[in-house]
């Protein structure tokens, strides 16, 4: 029997429309907008000014503080301005806007096509290179990778876990990467393992991607500490805690981090970026993005420069369909609906999903019939129906006691609810309020 996590989970229609599509380069747009706050933590500090000439791969903003990440120009050209621009959050944030002029890469970047699979750098040097390259978690959480690799004193990352699950319906960018860049990916993984001094590396892939499993297994054969594991398809297996549970049967405690159970988890996209950064000196300024949707004429996988407006991706995938109801940055379960098509692709953009009008409308919420389906699908063992009521009534102490902060916002509860209740909406509200209270208490 295939491995999976034990508690809860749902299985939405997979709809991997672009699974068979190769990765094509998206043309570079005339103007790009690079937000400075596209990672978890403090926004980067710009080091360029209006009028500066920049090259592709040049550092334009420096990581600011402990949890932050460098940002590099994804094109060559001239800085038009540093100004506020709308991003996927729905708010305007500081961004560097560059007028594109050609595509002249920084000389330090190794442009050769050969795969370089030996790395003799020390752990410290690897982490420094990853820090320099501005790599963040590309699965969507965008946590700066060099911070994750700096395991706190007294803790040990015995296992390195690589997330190739891609459990979100529709998205195929990781799948495409695992098929076409297997060698580079495995090198990146071995570099991460070297940096962590991990004893064992496990790659988890859901078994709806048998070709990716086969490809990586073949390549992983030459590494004796890396193994590839097929997992039963179940959402949200790509959640860190669920993946750790599925692969090594350990549970990260409430409020804890994976390193508390001796593991560190990286997405396959991140591992590939690590390869490029360490072996090719290439900073993170482009990524693979799935553009998909049932009404879209050409669902595709593109390699996209960070800062490219979403509308260019949609144009390249056949144009915005007539019946568009919602545009989502990410997958249908956890992605964010965006309000405009001129926002930029950022480091955390794994896909752009177009839902038609019909799919975009929520059905009206009806009274809770206490069927307990939300409890049975919750992967964290919470009681969504109760958390919603407590949140509606602002009962924050009980919310905290009933572990609202453990919610990973996977959305399985809202997805399954037969009464179409907006469970996660209210739980998010409760989390935000309880989070504020906890922060105030710490002060």
């Amino acid at each position, binding site marked *: 029997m295939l491995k999976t996590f034990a508690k809860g989970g749902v299985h939405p229609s997979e709809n991997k429309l672009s699974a068979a599509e190769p990765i094509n380069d998206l043309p570079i747009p005339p103007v790009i907008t690079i937000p400075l706050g596209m990672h978890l933590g403090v926004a980067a500090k710009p080091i360029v000014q209006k009028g500066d000439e920049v090259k592709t791969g040049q550092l334009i903003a420096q990581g600011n503080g402990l949890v932050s990440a460098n940002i590099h120009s994804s094109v060559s050209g001239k800085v038009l301005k540093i100004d506020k621009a709308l991003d996927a959050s729905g708010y305007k944030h500081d961004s560097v806007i560059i007028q594109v002029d050609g595509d002249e890469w920084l000389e330090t970047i190794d442009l050769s096509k050969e795969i370089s699979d030996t790395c003799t750098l020390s752990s410290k040097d690897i982490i420094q290179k990853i820090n320099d390259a501005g790599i963040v978690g590309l699965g969507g959480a965008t946590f700066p990778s060099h911070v994750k690799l700096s395991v706190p004193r007294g803790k040990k990352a015995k296992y390195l876990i690589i997330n190739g699950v891609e459990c979100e319906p529709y998205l195929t960018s990781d799948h495409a990467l695992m098929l076409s860049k297997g060698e580079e990916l495995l090198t990146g993984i071995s570099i991460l393992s070297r940096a962590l001094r991990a004893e064992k590396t496990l790659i988890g892939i859901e078994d709806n991607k048998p070709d990716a499993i086969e490809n990586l297994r073949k390549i992983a054969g030459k590494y004796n500490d890396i193994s590839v594991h097929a997992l039963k398809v179940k959402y949200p297996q790509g959640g860190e*805690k669920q993946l750790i549970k599925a692969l090594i049967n350990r549970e990260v405690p409430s409020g804890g981090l994976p390193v508390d159970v001796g593991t560190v988890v990286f997405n396959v996209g991140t591992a590939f970026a690590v390869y490029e950064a360490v072996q090719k000196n290439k900073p993170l300024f482009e990524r693979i993005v799935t553009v998909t949707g049932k009404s879209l004429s050409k669902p595709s996988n593109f390699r996209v420069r960070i800062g490219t407006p979403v509308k260019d991706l949609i144009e390249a995938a056949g144009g915005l369909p007539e019946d568009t109801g*919602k545009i989502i940055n990410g997958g249908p*379960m956890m992605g964010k*609906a965006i309000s405009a098509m001129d926002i930029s692709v950022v480091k955390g953009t794994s896909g752009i999903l177009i839902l038609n009008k019909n799919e*975009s409308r929520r059905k009206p919420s009806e009274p*809770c*019939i206490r069927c*307990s389906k939300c409890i049975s699908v919750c992967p964290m063992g919470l009681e969504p129906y109760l958390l919603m009521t407590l949140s509606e009534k602002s009962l924050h102490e009980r919310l905290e006691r009933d572990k609202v902060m*453990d919610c990973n916002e996977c959305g399985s509860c809202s997805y*399954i609810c037969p009464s179409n209740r907006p469970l996660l909406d209210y739980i998010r509200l409760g989390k935000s309020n309880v989070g504020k209270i906890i922060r105030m208490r710490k002060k």
Partner: protein
Amino acid sequence: MNKLITVAPSPHIHSGLSVQKLMYGVIIAMIPALLVSIAFYGIGAIAVTLISIVSCVSFEFLIQKFILNSQVRISDGSAIVTGMLLAFNLPSNLPWWIILIGAMVSIGIGKMTFGGLGNNPFNPALVGRVFLLLSFPVQMTSYPVPKGVSTPYISNIEGFTGPTPLGILKEGLKNGTPVSDVMKELPSYLDLFIGKLGGSLGEIAGAALVIGMIFMLLRKIITWHIPVSIILSVYVFTGILHLAQPSQYADPLFHIITGGLLLGAIFMATDYVTSPMTPAGMIIYGVGIGIITVLIRVFGAYPEGVSFAILIMNGFVPLINRYIKPVRFGEEVSNG
């Protein structure tokens, strides 16, 4: 871009599951038992079921439309389920006006006074049933004997109508007859299981009820926790009594296939609204129902106790929900 697009928080897709789908699933699961009761009781079974369903749905409609002035929700199917369950708890020769009163109490008092579906603490069909049992004890406990069943005990005393096997047992024990002698008067267990016994519409066909349960388990409408814990706890409790004193206490299998135990365990106790939310809570609730059922059957005044047991445990559900929490992620596994 001039188009209006929706911006809403995730998740952006839904499973398509609905209250209707769940309720119609329960209705489908009740059909085998309904067919058995039609086969045994004929037109009476059809009449009682139809009167009960139509009056339950009508009362819900009238109350929502004219008394509460709220949205009419009869299409969710829950009133049909209540109507069918109420009918399953009635004898097939019950006068129509008693059924009407039962439906009014079920929907009016059992459900709508508390705010309708989702808010009622007690199973509406059982509220109606118990109301009728206390108000019309004679009509509610003289059951027509199914066609093709004749035991000397029934035909000699009652003629056309007769008590349930549990009633016969209770009566026999009261007169000092040992269990083994009473059992000789009753049809075989196999006959009892496929419906050859006196009883209300839905309780006679154990086999058909079990088919309904398997359907609901496969369709994930219910989980195993409640029915299995009720049946097992009745089996264990009556088994202990039987082993201690076989002449005084009937054996466990008899208790499970007779009376409304299977009907109650499969269809009544599993009512979403009035049962606990967590698996552990469901098991506590199920064991509670099992124990109270046996206490009433063996030591109480009534031959049958499932309805009362479920209603009593319904009352404990808020307490169970408050204190029995699911196992949280990160709590159980020792990480070494």
